[in-house]
Every structure is written in C-alpha cells, then in structure tokens.
C-alpha cells in the first residue's frame, strides 16, 4: 500500500505539464527541421502520451536500452549503461529487474547495494499521526534519561526537602493547595510536607492532601483565623514557628523551605536549595494583582534587579549583592502611602501587599533547629527564645544573630524562582467551598445544607 501511494505520487509528479512543455520547447528550439528532428519530435510526443496513459515517466532512454547492443566493456560506456540501468530501475520501483541488465553492467554497478541514483518515492504511512502508546513510551525514556543525568551531573547527595505550609479552610483553599501539592509531587528529591492548619486538623484538608503520595505531617494549630491581613500574616508566622518546633522535636533532617499555599514555585528552586549550607535566601517576585497596573504601586527598587525584571517591573524581594557576589544588603518591599486600594481584611477588594521580607524567601538547614547538632554554628539563636508569647517575628533573620552569614542563591539573587501572591475570594462571593452532594429532602433543609457547605 505504501508502494502504491509512492507510485501514484511519482505518476502525479511526472505528469506535471512543466516537464512536458519543457521537453517540447527544447524540441522546437532545435531549429532545422530535418527528418531526424521530426522523428525525434514524434517520438517525444509518443512518449509523453504513453506517460500520460501509464501514469509514470516513460523515458526515451527505454528505447535506447531496448534497441542498442551491449558495447565492449570500456569504462565510459559501462557507466552510460549503468545510468540506463538506474533510470530503468527507477521507472519500475516495485520490481527488481536484474534479469534485463547485462553482465558487464552488473559488475560495474553497485553489486549487492540497494541504493540507486535517481528518483525515489516518498514513503508515507497510512496514518501519519502520533500513536499514544509511542508517546507514552518515549516519555518514559526521557524520564529515565533525565534521572540518569541527575545521578551523573546533579547533586551528589541530595538532601530531603522539608516544606512547611500554613493553611486554613476557605473558599480558595482547594485551588491553592492543589497547586502546591502538584509542585511538591514533581520535586525530584525526598520530601516531607508539614501542613499546619488553623483551627485544628480538619478532615477536608486531610482528604485533599491525601491525594498526593507525599509524606505528610498534618498538624493543627488551635487559633481562629483573623479577618485583617496584618493579623493573618502574624498568625502565619506563629504557625511556621509551631512547625519549626515540630521539626526540632522530631529531629527531622533536611532543608526547611516555607511553601505558602498561594505562592508559585519554579522547579529550579528546589535544585538551588540543595546547595545551601546553613541559611539561604532567594529572590521572591511579588505579584500584586486585582487588575491594577504596576504603575500604581511604588516599590523601592535598586538597579540590581537583573535583566528579567527590567521589562516586567515586578518588585522583587531578596538578597542584594555587590559586584564580587557578596551579600551586602536586602531588597525589601516598601509601600508608599499613595497606594489607593489596599486590602485591609481578607476578602476585601484591593491589593494584598506583602511584608518587608517574606518567610518564603528563606531556606534553613533543619540542623540549625535541633537542640544538639554537630558543627551547629554559634550565630543561631535557640528556637525557644524566639516567638514566645505571640511576639511577631518578621523574618527568619531574627533567628540569626548576624545577617551577613546568609548565602544568596539563584546567581546571587538575580534569578527569581519564586513568586508571592495572595488571592482570596471576595467576602461577598457566593462560590461554595467544596461541592457537597447531600440528599436534599425539603427546601428548608436544602438551604441549611448550603449554608453549612459555604462556611
């Protein structure tokens, strides 16, 4: 069937008027109309007609082959017959015509070779579209190759990643938490996920996060979620410290990352984390939204923001280095009071702004938190001293006695691998928290059920 299509294509191309007209043109331009030229003209026309009928290029050379006698084997004539042989072979691609060739031709041409000069068909299979089985197999091959690459060129002894996420049940929790879950499921290293939930560990959250196959510690934190964004930020800090105490108690080993549930992470972040010795800092891009153009926000930016921020004007928080790649300061987030609609409480329409330095931009070695660890540096405060009695800890820098020992990551903070965002449903939104299907008996009962799902 493939060969048939090849034959058809050849015929179609051979029938192009371009080639026929060029043959006739060359014949007419010949000039003197002697008997020989008339004869050749007629032969041309006859061959064209035969080509049209047969469907492939019936060459004049065929006549030569049939009528000429095989000449004594000199070098040039055997090559001429070799050409004829190849042209002839070419016109009948489906058959092997070794019987019509002379013995000299056979010895002079490619003996045993399948390759001939001339025109070949273009082989197209009947269904030239991707086969899903093949695609799946190839994806597995790519995955295995990448794993091998990581083994050979990647981090030699990868550390476990300990991700700490404060969360609570709300309208957009499914949205955010699913995103984080899938990000963490794609991390190629061992992962421990500590989910700290306000108001105790609920079944809803548990059922959501159990869909991943990660190792999860689901801890509850008995407080009520506040309405104001400021208070919520402070509560999140408390939750993170609670999780750090958990890490200390259980003596979990790895790199502690603060993965807030509405942030966006790049996979390269987790590769960069592996190179941290004690405390690392990454640049965090701030995506403030709600339909505002970036010109409304005024942020303190320095020229060290790198090429990728020049066009987007996205504010970036993180370490700032001098030309010899040493940490000299921090880019922080400063808001001029000129900003119009800043959201004050959760669910209000407006821009949600981050604090000066977000916890998400810092990575800690979990051994810093342990009570006793070998070569634990002296410049780390004990976890119990910090954050007692609801004291507000602005950033993990408060855990350190000196901020100069922080290691900047991502090409010294020039590469942004993490984006901060807070998006919550508007207070007057009617989007239900989760679709809950109950057997609805009466209308009143139905309204009651809807209210309970909404909470």
């Amino acid at each position, binding site marked *: 069937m*493939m060969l048939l299509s090849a034959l058809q*294509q*050849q015929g179609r*191309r*051979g029938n*192009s008027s*371009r*080639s026929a007209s060029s043959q006739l043109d060359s014949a007419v331009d010949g000039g003197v109309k002697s008997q020989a030229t008339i004869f050749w003209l007629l032969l041309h026309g006859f061959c064209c007609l035969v080509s049209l009928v047969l469907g492939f290029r019936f060459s004049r050379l065929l006549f030569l082959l049939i009528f000429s006698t095989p000449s004594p084997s000199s*070098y040039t004539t055997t*090559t*001429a017959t*070799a*050409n004829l042989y*190849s042209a002839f072979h070419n016109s009948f691609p489906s058959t092997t015509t070794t019987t019509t060739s002379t013995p000299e031709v056979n010895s002079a041409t*490619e*003996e*045993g*070779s*399948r*390759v001939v*000069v*001339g*025109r*070949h*068909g*273009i*082989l*197209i*299979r009947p269904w*030239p*579209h*991707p*086969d899903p089985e*093949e*695609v799946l*197999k*190839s994806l*597995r*091959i*790519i995955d*295995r*190759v*990448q794993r*091998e*690459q*990581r083994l*050979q*060129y*990647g981090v030699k002894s990868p550390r476990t990643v300990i991700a700490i996420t404060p969360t609570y049940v709300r309208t957009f929790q499914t949205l955010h938490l699913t995103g984080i879950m899938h990000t963490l499921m794609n991390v190629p290293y061992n992962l421990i996920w500590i989910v700290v939930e306000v108001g105790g560990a609920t079944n809803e959250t548990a059922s959501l996060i159990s869909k991943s196959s990660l190792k999860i510690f689901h801890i509850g934190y008995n407080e009520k979620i506040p309405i104001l964004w400021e208070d919520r930020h402070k509560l999140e800090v408390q939750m993170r410290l609670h999780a750090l105490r958990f890490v200390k108690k259980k003596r979990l080993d790895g790199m502690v990352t603060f993965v807030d549930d509405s942030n966006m992470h790049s996979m390269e972040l987790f590769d960069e984390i592996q190179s941290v010795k004690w405390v690392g800092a990454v640049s965090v891009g701030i995506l403030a939204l709600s339909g505002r153009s970036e010109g409304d926000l005024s942020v303190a930016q320095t020229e060290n923001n790198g090429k990728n921020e020049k066009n987007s004007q996205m504010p970036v928080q993180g370490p700032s280095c001098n030309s010899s790649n040493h940490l000299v300061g921090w880019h922080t987030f400063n808001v001029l009071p000129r900003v119009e609609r800043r959201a004050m409480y959760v669910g209000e329409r407006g821009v949600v702004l981050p604090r000066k330095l977000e916890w998400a931009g810092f990575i800690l070695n979990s051994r810093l938190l342990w009570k006793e660890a070998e070569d634990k540096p002296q410049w780390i405060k004990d976890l119990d001293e910090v954050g007692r009695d609801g004291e507000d800890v602005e950033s993990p820098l408060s855990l350190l006695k000196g901020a100069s020992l922080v290691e900047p990551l991502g090409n010294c903070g020039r590469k942004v691998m993490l984006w901060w965002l807070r998006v919550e449903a508007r207070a007057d939104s009617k989007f239900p928290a989760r679709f809950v299907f109950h057997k609805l008996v009466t209308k009143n009962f139905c309204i009651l059920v809807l209210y309970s799902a909404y909470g």
Partner: protein
Amino acid sequence: MRNWRCVFSMVVYFAFCFSIEAYKFQRTQQTERISGSAGDVLEDDPVGRLKVFVYELPSKYNKKILQKDPRCLTHMFAAEIYMHRFLLSSPVRTLNPEEADWFYTPVYTTCDLTPNGLPLPFKSPRMMRSAIQLISSNWPYWNRTEGADHFFIVPHDFGACFHYQEEKAIERGILTLLQRATLVQTFGQRNHFCLKDGSITIPPYAPPQKMQSHLIPPSTPRSIFVYFRGLFYDVGNDPEGGYYARGARASVWENFKNNPLFDISTEHPSTYYEDMQRAVFCLCPLGWAPWSPRLVEAVIFGCIPVIIADDIVLPFADAIPWEDIGVFVPEKDVPKLDTILTSIPIDEILRKQRLLGNPSMKQAMLFPQPVQPRDAFHQILNGLARKLPHDKSVYLKPGETILNWTAGPVGDLKPW
C-alpha cells in the same frame, strides 16, 4: 628470610596492580571504553609509527588559493587546509623522502567557491592532474609506485569523483591518476564508484571553538526526544521531489510533522547547538550526499545520532564502533521511525549516551586549533599507520606503468 621478602614484594606488586585496576574501573563507570573492529585504537599515538614527507608545491596550488578566498578556512571542507598545516609542524613529518612511508601533496581542490560559499569542482580534476604531473617530474617517488604510497585529502561531496551531482560523479568515477593512491575523504558509501577500497573516511570539518562556546551545563535535563533542523525538500534543485535525499527527508517530514515528540523544522535558530544538547536523539539523514556535519555535532553534544542513509560508511569506521553508538535506520523504514526509536531498550540508550560521553570519542571528531592529542588529525595518521607496511607488489619495476595518463573526460586533459 629471602622467601619472606619475595612474598612481601609480590603482595605489594599485586596490590598495586589491583589498585590501578580499581581506579580504571571507577573511571569507566560513567563512560565506557570505545573499541572498534581494529581494536582499542582511538587512543593510539601515531608518532614514531610512520613518517610522512610533504611535497613542496608552488603556492599557486595552496596558499594563493587560500588568499583569494579565506572562507575556505571555515566551511565544512576545511580539513584539507588544516591537515596541511598540521603535517608541516608535526613530529611525523620527515624532510628526508628516502625514509618516508607516506607522501602528502598539499593541493586545495575544494577552495574555488561560489559567492554563496559552495565549492565548484569543475577545475579540481585539472588542478589535481597538474599537481601530480609536477611531483612525478620533480621527484622520483611517484613513478616508483605510481602513487600507491601517496595520500590525498579530497573532502568534497563525492570525494575524488569531483562533482556534486551523484549521477555525474558516478559517470566520471574516481580520477584515473588517483586509482592507486590512498584517499582521505568525507564521502563513504559501500559499493559506490566514488569510494575506493582502502580509503580513510574522515568527519567533515566543524568549527571547534564555535561549538565549545555554545556548551550548556550537562545537568540540563534532556527534554526533546528527536531533534532535526534542515531542509526536507530542495525546491531549487529538485522541484519534482524524490531526488533530494532519495525522498527520505521528505518522508520524515510528511510522517512526523504532527508528532509532538519530533522537534523538526527548516528554521535556522540561534540556539541550534544548545537545543541539540537538550535532545535525546538527533536525526542525521542523508542530503545530496550521505554525509553531513550533523554527525559531528551530535557526537560533540552527546545526542544519539539516528543515521538514515543506506550503506553509508562513517568516519574512522574501523576505530569507532558506530553500531554501538548510533542508531541506523534503513530508508525504507522511515515511516516507522517513532516505533523504532521507542522500542530501543532503555539500557542500550543509556549505554550509547555513556559511549558518547567518552571524551576520546568527541576528540576524534574534531580538528582543533592548536592540535590536541587523539584528535581527528591523529586518527588519520593512525589509519595511515595501520595500512603499513606497504606490500612489496606496489613497488613497480623501472619503466613499468600501470596508470593511463590520458584516460578520463577530454576536459580533464587541459592544463590548469
């Protein structure tokens, strides 16, 4: 007492041996040693195994041509120029022709370029003929063997057939005067008129500095399955279709243009080298001639070459086991290319990548400036050394001639 000393020294010796072996094993865990049909010869050093005498030809055969068009130094046929420069300053060169095993004639036949940069081969046979006439009249060594211990570098499309169109090249055949000499060429196809027995196939020239400057970290994950950039149809020279690449490239396009695994197009991206390093397989189909610099690029960038060219002879085929390194697909099986590639067992794919990662493999494909050990220049010399010693029968008795100096197309007999 003496026995104890003996035993102790034996123990130390064996421990030393084992530690060396252990070191070698550790080193080869990530890359494998390459050994072709001629044995483990990629790392051989040709110095001391052969002597080459370089003829002093007037500069109209080499330097003047290069001065007229310096583009000859960067195109894919530049091997002839760099080989000349290498031999002039190499330790295998000898100034005494009596002790030489091989004789080299520095004539740049592929340096007559069109404005586009493609070499015209029309004057090359006359130029070669004129050079041979010169050396046969000024030195006695050509007539001694009629060229059997001489070698020439002919990197053009179809080697010493000196034409870019295959039909015409077959018609001309190899230049009569070169019938007994050893040809070092890029073209290689089994049972073809233009491949002589005993030729040495070399890779086309690819600029090493340019490729080194586009290297990306090897930890970048390879996410493209199959990669190819180039023409599928040559509308200018082959308007009907079916002649160019014997229809194989067109077949690749028609069958796989919708396939997400195949990143194939005719674009010329600036990230071509970087993309090759992010691909698992790189297609190296034939074009007008079966060889192409894509093979060299694929080897340098660690991408497994998928060679679609029937009966092709690859560079240094006796030193490099190409069957173990690349994937060979017959042209008639191109519609099934995706099935073929996905059914290769994963262990073989990883093994091919390990073989490609071997630095001596990459070195053997390059013509670096300045010369480095085990590079393509040395592999050529190794190939020449493997052909030694010359058979006694190549030495002709005085007055005996085998070659016919007047054979060939009439146009070739005109002086250059």
